[in-house]
């Protein structure tokens, strides 16, 4: 199915506002991405292309740059969110539960919500049996946490034309791949409705730092600019603001302080809520009924 068959165009100004409890204005949805990069394939991202642009296999420098996130960077996230008493949503390649059990355990013990993020980090188009991969990923996460994941994010947000159908069939309730609104929406699948939550490619350290090559401090500025605008709009209708981070990028020593500053700024505002994906989903389903 192409997107138009799943959901028609809707202008936000033509919809009745959604209301948050307790005079809430903006829900901040923090997503930490944990990935497994297979050293036998080209790396998912590169900080350093090889001299003369040759494709390296194995690509040890970029593999180890990502590995730093799992060894060091993610512990900065865990400390920050424990301190702030925020439970992020963990977008996790299921293979991480096996290869980096120590990291997955720390997130589980901290009460983070586990969201499916495929088996390992590659475009979903290249997966030979997508339904089997989705099933295996969700089973692995369920075994690890004791709970079947409610949410899903494609690697690099990738989908084929049938992905939402396969996800709905596997019991997934919400996805983050559709960054086309400030509010949750419902899309049609062959196996019933699926909810889209407003994930982000704007407040996301991959496009910002690895594609657009911004300075570290700009992450803070862009998040604050977004928050201020959405907070203003949030006096009339609920707004969701996602922040998407990766330990190998925002967990770097030179970047972590800008991430800390973002939450310091947000938490000075009454009506800023920190929710997980499932909390947003449950609120949306109820709020929609009450409209």
């Amino acid at each position, binding site marked *: 199915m192409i997107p138009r068959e799943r959901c028609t165009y809707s202008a936000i100004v033509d919809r009745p506002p959604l209301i948050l409890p307790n005079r809430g204005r903006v829900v901040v949805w923090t997503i930490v991405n944990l990935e497994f990069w297979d050293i036998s394939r080209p790396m998912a991202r590169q900080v350093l292309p090889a001299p003369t642009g040759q494709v390296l296999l194995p690509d040890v420098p970029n593999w180890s740059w990502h590995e730093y996130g799992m060894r060091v960077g993610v512990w900065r996230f865990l400390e920050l969110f424990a301190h702030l008493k925020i439970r992020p949503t963990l977008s996790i390649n299921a293979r991480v539960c096996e290869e980096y059990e120590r990291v997955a355990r720390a997130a589980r013990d901290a009460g983070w919500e586990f969201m499916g993020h495929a088996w390992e980090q590659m*475009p979903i188009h290249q997966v030979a049996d997508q339904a089997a991969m989705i099933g295996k990923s969700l089973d692995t996460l369920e075994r690890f946490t004791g709970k079947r994941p409610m949410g899903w994010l494609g690697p690099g947000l990738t989908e084929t034309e049938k992905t939402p159908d396969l996800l709905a069939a596997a019991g997934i309730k919400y996805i983050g791949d559709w960054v*086309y609104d400030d509010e949750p929406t419902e899309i049609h699948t062959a196996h019933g409705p699926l909810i889209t939550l407003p994930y982000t490619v704007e407040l996301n350290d991959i496009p910002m730092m690895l594609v657009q090559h911004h300075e570290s401090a700009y992450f803070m500025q862009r998040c604050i600019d977004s928050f201020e605008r959405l907070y203003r709009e949030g006096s009339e209708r609920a707004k969701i603001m996602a922040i998407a981070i990766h330990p190998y990028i925002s967990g770097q020593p030179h970047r972590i302080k800008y991430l800390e500053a973002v939450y310091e700024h947000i938490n000075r505002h009454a009506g800023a809520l920190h929710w997980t994906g499932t909390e947003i989903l449950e609120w949306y389903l109820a709020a929609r009924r009450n409209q």
Partner: protein
Amino acid sequence: MLPTERLEFSVIPHRRRLSLPGGARLVVWVIVNVEEWDPTQAMPRTVLTPPGGGAPMPDIPNWAWHEYGNRVGFWRILEVLDQHTIRAVLAINGSAIARYEPIARAGLDRGWEFIGHAFTQRSMQKVEDEREDIRKTAASIRTVTGKSPRGWLGPGLTETWETPDLLAEEGYEYVCDWVLDDQPVRLKTRAKPIVSIPYTQECNDVAMMLIQHHKAGEYYDRAVDQFEQLYGDAAASARIMALVVHPYIMGAPHRLKYLRRALARIREYPDVLFWTGEEILDWYLVQSPPP
């Protein structure tokens, strides 16, 4: 026809003086680009590349990122233009007129000018029947405005050797693809001449944010720097300054304020006019009558 066959080389200080009414120095025109991206094709621009590279299809994340502009971003930009009582020029794909009917209606209600921006968002060099595309686009616009569009902007400013001829033959009176001057100029065609009105690749959010990867604040800085220089130049003879926005770029929450501030700054000058393209055209035809 080669560009050099369409117009003589001419230096701006040697031309006859152009004067604006009421002693005004400068005209600013604001062009809002509304497009429809076909989810079955490669996306015209991307914010996020797939992990490990390549170009898997369909490209849902980048489709959704653009769609955000029409669902949410456009309505923010509209509010800013309304606050400053600016009638913008809507450069709109013919197919987007029906798809995004609330946007076309908002433009119509405010008396914005509609100009052709091809039927779909792809290079004019890839369009099979260019004349048919140009005609279909005009027909779509007529369904909303009741009038044929007078102006045209190619998708990504693309043209074939024949485009200006076809536009003139099909009744278009001005074109925006030729960013070669600060004043309107005439281009020869097989039919009657067509006027080139100064559009911009400089104060254009696609070039600044998606290609050069500037911070959002650069839109304000560059617009004001551009304005101050042109305002000075205009002491000798009238100048035209274009400001270009796309809902999916400047309509992001973190970027909007830089557009608002730029317009507020320029609005402080009483001798600056905000006109549509056809107002510029009609003025120019009187100032510099056809030979």
